[in-house]
């Protein structure tokens, strides 16, 4: 497969940025960027919805309780983004074909969004402070539990946010707007001081 280039390549220089980390409160804020192997949006309608959900659960070995719960394992991450809409990240490159075959059989719709989003991960106990500068949702743990996802926006740039753990979030940002989003996130995080790392698992 041809190597994918992201608009953020070369933009995120590893190392420390922004307010210098003073000794007594070292900033543990880390930001990293990754493109995802494959990303697909599945759409189901009320009648065929149940069939599609069970298909997805079988394919991904994850259970979908509904609402905003966003289960994940080694291979798959499912993010409900609206009524009957699921954004699914798969680690394998050819996931699209499988989804198309199985979901279409259940009369759902499958759209490849692999190139349409760039993923930025931000982690550290200042992560909520930085994100709350530009995104109008409540990032507290009770309002936004771990392993759930939200659709919101910053400055009219739509994005999907998934809480990976207590203070780490994956941000799925539109590719064409990724640099503008990064320009904001960099400025917002510089107030606290942050580290760019290759890959935070």
């Amino acid at each position, binding site marked *: 497969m041809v190597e994918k280039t992201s608009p953020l390549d070369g933009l995120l220089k590893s190392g420390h940025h922004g307010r210098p980390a003073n000794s007594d409160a070292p900033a543990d804020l880390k930001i990293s960027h990754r493109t995802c192997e494959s990303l697909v949006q599945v759409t189901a*309608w*009320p*009648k065929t919805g149940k069939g599609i959900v069970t298909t997805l659960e079988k394919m991904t070995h994850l259970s979908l309780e509904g609402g*905003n719960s966003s289960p994940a394992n080694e291979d798959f991450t499912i993010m409900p*983004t*609206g*009524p*009957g*809409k699921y954004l699914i990240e798969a680690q394998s490159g050819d996931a699209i074909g499988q989804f198309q075959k199985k979901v279409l059989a259940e009369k759902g719709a499958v759209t490849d969004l692999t190139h349409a989003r760039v993923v930025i991960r931000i982690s550290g106990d200042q992560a909520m402070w930085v994100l709350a500068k530009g995104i*109008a*949702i409540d990032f507290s743990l009770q309002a936004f539990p771990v392993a759930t996802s*939200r*659709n*919101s*926006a910053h400055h*009219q740039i*739509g994005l999907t946010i998934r809480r990976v753990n207590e203070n780490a979030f994956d941000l799925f940002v539109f590719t064409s707007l990724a640099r503008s989003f990064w320009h904001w996130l960099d400025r917002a995080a510089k107030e606290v001081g942050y580290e760019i790392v290759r890959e935070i698992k």
Partner: protein
Amino acid sequence: MLIDCPWCGPRSVEEFTYRGDGTLKRPALSDRSIDAANAYVYDRENPAGDHMEIWHHGNGCRSHILVKRNTLTHKILSCELLGPYSAGRKK
């Protein structure tokens, strides 16, 4: 304002766009009457009080929400999902 999106929960109004009067009923496809189409496109009740209106959660789940809001106090009285998953429609 805070709109209680039936799918996403209460969200700030900056995530929504206003899509106007929620009482309009588009004439049937087969209806060729110009008067009926004119009424649908141009007539507005524009009440000073409770108003049924539609908001689009553009920066959220992208669903349409039928909101009952008072145009004198901005108090939102009810929010209901529209579209295939609307409660009103047979599942």
